[in-house]
C-alpha cells in the first residue's frame, strides 16, 4: 500500500472529500436546502461563498445537499446493480443450460434498448421517487455487471479447483460464494468504480431532463438545470455543479484505474 501513485492519491483525496461532505452535509452547509436567503444570482461574497441561485438560495448549501443526494442515489444504485448483476451472472455461469440462455438473452434484449430512453419511458409512467430512481438505474445497470460477472465466472468455472469442489459434492452456494467470488473480486471491484461514475452521470442526465430528483430536492444535475439560463448572462451558477460532477467522476476514475492496475498486474496483487 506504500507506493500509491500521485494520480491515485489525488483521486482518493477528492473522492474522500466529496463523500465526507455528503455524510456531514447538515453540519457543514451554512444554510438550509430550500432556504431563500438573498437576491437572484448574487455573485459570490463572504456571506454566500458561491453566490446564490436562480431564486436566491445559497448555492454552496444547495451544492452540499445536492452532492449528498447524488452520491447517495448513485451509491445505492451501484450496490443494487452489483448485487443483482453479479449474483445472476455467477449463477448463469455455474448452472449454464437454459437458465444461462434465458438470462443472457433477456440481458441482450435489455441492452439493445438505449438505457436513457428506457429509463425515461419507465420514469414517465411511474412516480418519480428516490427509491424508484435507484431501482430503475440499478436494474438497468445490472445488465452490464451481469455480462462482466458472467464472463469472469465462466473462466473461473472451468478451473480445476471448481471441478474439485463439484466432485466433492459442494452446493451452488459454496461454489459461487467461496470458490468463484473471491477470485472474481478484483475485476469486479475495478468495475465498481467505473459503474459508480456512470451512475452519477446517468442521474445528472435524468435530473437535467426533469425526470430525476424532483424539486425542491435537487442533485447536481438538477442544479445545472435550474441555473442554466444564467449562463447567457455570464452567471457561473450552472458551471459549479458541472465542475463538481466532472471532478467527482475524474477522481473516482483515478482510484478505479489504480485498483485495476494493482489487481491485474502480473507482479503483485493476485499472487498474494
Amino acid at each position, binding site marked *: 500500500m*506504500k507506493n500509491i501513485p500521485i494520480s491515485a492519491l489525488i483521486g482518493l483525496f477528492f473522492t474522500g472529500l466529496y463523500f465526507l461532505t455528503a455524510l456531514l452535509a447538515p453540519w457543514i452547509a451554512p444554510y438550509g436546502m430550500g432556504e431563500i436567503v438573498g437576491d437572484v444570482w448574487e455573485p459570490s461574497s463572504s456571506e454566500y461563498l458561491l453566490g446564490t441561485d436562480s431564486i436566491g438560495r445559497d448555492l454552496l448549501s444547495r451544492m452540499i445537499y445536492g452532492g449528498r443526494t447524488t452520491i447517495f442515489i448513485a451509491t445505492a444504485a451501484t450496490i443494487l446493480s452489483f448485487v443483482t448483476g453479479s449474483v445472476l451472472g455467477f449463477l448463469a455461469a455455474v448452472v449454464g443450460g437454459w437458465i444461462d440462455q434465458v438470462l443472457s438473452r433477456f440481458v441482450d434484449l435489455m441492452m439493445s434498448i438505449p438505457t436513457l430512453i428506457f429509463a425515461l419511458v419507465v420514469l414517465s409512467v411511474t412516480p418519480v421517487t428516490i427509491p424508484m430512481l435507484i431501482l430503475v438505474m440499478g436494474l438497468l445497470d445490472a445488465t452490464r455487471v451481469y455480462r462482466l460477472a458472467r464472463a469472469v465466472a465462466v473462466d473461473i468455472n472451468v*478451473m*480445476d*479447483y471448481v*471441478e*474439485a469442489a*463439484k*466432485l*466433492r*459434492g*459442494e452446493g451452488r452456494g459454496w461454489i459461487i460464494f*467461496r*470458490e468463484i467470488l*473471491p*477470485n472474481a473480486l478484483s475485476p469486479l471491484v475495478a468495475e465498481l468504480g467505473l459503474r459508480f461514475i456512470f451512475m452519477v452521470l446517468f442521474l445528472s442526465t435524468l435530473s437535467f431532463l426533469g425526470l430525476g430528483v424532483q424539486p425542491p430536492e435537487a442533485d447536481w444535475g438538477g442544479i445545472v438545470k435550474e441555473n442554466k439560463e444564467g449562463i447567457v448572462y455570464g452567471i457561473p451558477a450552472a458551471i459549479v455543479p458541472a465542475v463538481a460532477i466532472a471532478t467527482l467522476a475524474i477522481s473516482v476514475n483515478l482510484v478505479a484505474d489504480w485498483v485495476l492496475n494493482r489487481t491485474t498486474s502480473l*507482479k*503483485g*496483487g*493476485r*499472487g*498474494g
Partner: protein
Amino acid sequence: MVNLLSVKDLKIGATVYPPGEKPHDIEIVKGVSFDLEPGMVLGLIGESGAGKSTIGLSAMAYGRGGVKITGGEVWLNDRDILKGGVRGLRALRGAEVTYVAQSAAAAFNPAKKLMEQIVEATLEHGRASRSEAEARAVELFRKLGLPNPETFGERYPHQVSGGQLQRAMTALALCPQPDLVIFDEPTTALDVTTQIDVLSAIKEAIRDTGVAALYITHDLAVVAQVSDHIMVLRHGEMVEYGTTDHIINTPQEEYTQALVSVRSIEHEEKAPAGDPLLKVDGVTARYRGTNFDVLKNINVELYQGQTLALVGESGSGKSTMARAITGLLEPTQGSIHFAGRTLSHYLANRSKEDLRELQMIYQMADVAMNPRQTVGTIIGRPLEFYFGLTGAEKRKRIIELLDEIELGEGFMDRYPAELSGGQKQRVCIARALAAKPKLIICDEVTSALDPLVADGILKLLLNLQKIENVAYLFITHDIATVRAIADSIAVMYQGNVVRYGQKSQVLSPPFDDYTDLLLSSVPEMELGWLERVVSSRKMVSAGN
C-alpha cells in the same frame, strides 16, 4: 580451435515484486562460464528455476521479462555482444543467432502462411533473396522429414500437427544459416511418440548444416541424444560440465547422479485379490454435441489397494475415462461399478458416500487449488464437508495429513502461491486423502514436475498406498512412471484399450505395434538410443 561462443562469468538478475514486500533484486544466474566450438551442441540441463533458459537467451543478449544481464561477457564470433548496442543486437538476432521456442503453436502467427514466417528473418537481414530463401526452406523441410516439402510452406500454422510445427520452427531458425541456434525445450510439449521424430529431425538437421547449438531441457535422457557436451545447472550455478558420455556414465556430483538415476523406483506388482473395487464395464462415451466416440467399449478392473495405469498419448481418451468415472461425462453405454455399487452416470445423482470414496488429483496443481484459500482451508474443507469435523478436531486432522505428506504444520496458513510445484501437488494429495477415499484418480500428477520432484511424489503415493490401502487409477503418458507405480496397465490408443493386463505381462513381448512404439519412444539414459530406436520402429505416431 577457436570458440564460436564464449560466455565468461555471466551474471543475470531480476527485480522481484513479492506481495506485501518491497521490490528487490535477486540474482538468477550467478557467474556461469562456458565455451562452444563451431558445430558443437551444448546441452543445458536443470530443473525449473535453474536459469537454463535465461543463460540460453543470453547468447543473443536477451533477457525475458524483467531479466537483466548484470555482469560478465558474452563473446560471439570474437565480439562482446553485450557491448554491441541496439544496432549490433539487431544485426545479430535472427541472423547469426536464432531461437526455437518451446511452444511452436504460440510462437507462429496464426494469420500468416508458414513460408512467409520462415523466410522473414532471412530476408530482413538480407542474407538471401526471396527465391533463394524459399528454396533453402524447402530443402530444410525435406531434411526435417516434413510431408510434401514443396508445398508445406503454403499451409497455415493451424493446418499442421504440433510435431510438424515444432519442426517448421526449426526450419525457421536454420533458414538464415546462423552460426548458433538456441533450442529452448523444443520437445517438452510434445507426446513421447512425437518427440522422438522431432528429436531425430533436429539432430539430423544440426549435423547436416554444421550449426552450433545450445539445447535447453529438463530431461537428461533427451539431451543425451543430441548434445556433445552437457552442463548441469542448479539455482543459477554450474553443477557439472563435461562430455555427454562423462555426464551420463560417470557423473561426479551428487546432484548429477540423482538426475541420472531418477526414475529407478522399483515396484513389486500385486496380484488381483478379491472382488474388483472398480469395474468399468463396456463404457462408451462421447462429448456433448459431437458424434464421435472418445471412449469405445472400455472394460477394465481395479482391485483394492492396487494401481491401474492408463497409458497413451494425448487424444487417446485416458483423461476422458477419468471424467466418465467421476461422473463429469455421462457414458452413452456401459456401466461403472464401484465398491459393490453401480455408480450413477450423473454426478448429481451420486451419493455423498460415492463422492467421498472416489477422489481426484490433477495434473496442474496450481489451478487445482483455489488461490484465495489457505492450505488449511483447502485440506480442511473435505473434513468438514464429509465428516463434520470442526475446531480443534479438524485442526488436529489437518496437521496429521500435513505430516503424512511430509510438509508439517507450518504450511497450514500458507497460500498456494507460496508453495513450490511439488509442495502444491502434495497439498492436493492431502486434500484427496482427507476424504478417506477408496480410490484416487491421478491425472498426470507428475508430468508438470521436475524429475526429482516427481520422484518424490511417486514415492509418497506408493507409501500412502501401503498405509491407507487406497487404490489408484493412474493416468500418464510416461512409461517410466508406470513402471514405478503400476500393478496393472491399460494401454489406450484412439479411444480403445489396445493392451490390458498385469504389469509384467503388458511390458513383456510380444508387443502389438502401438505398445511397441510407445515403449520404445521413452528416452533412455543411454548414448545412441535415438538412432537405435528410429531404425527399428514399426509404426509412427498418430499425431504426426
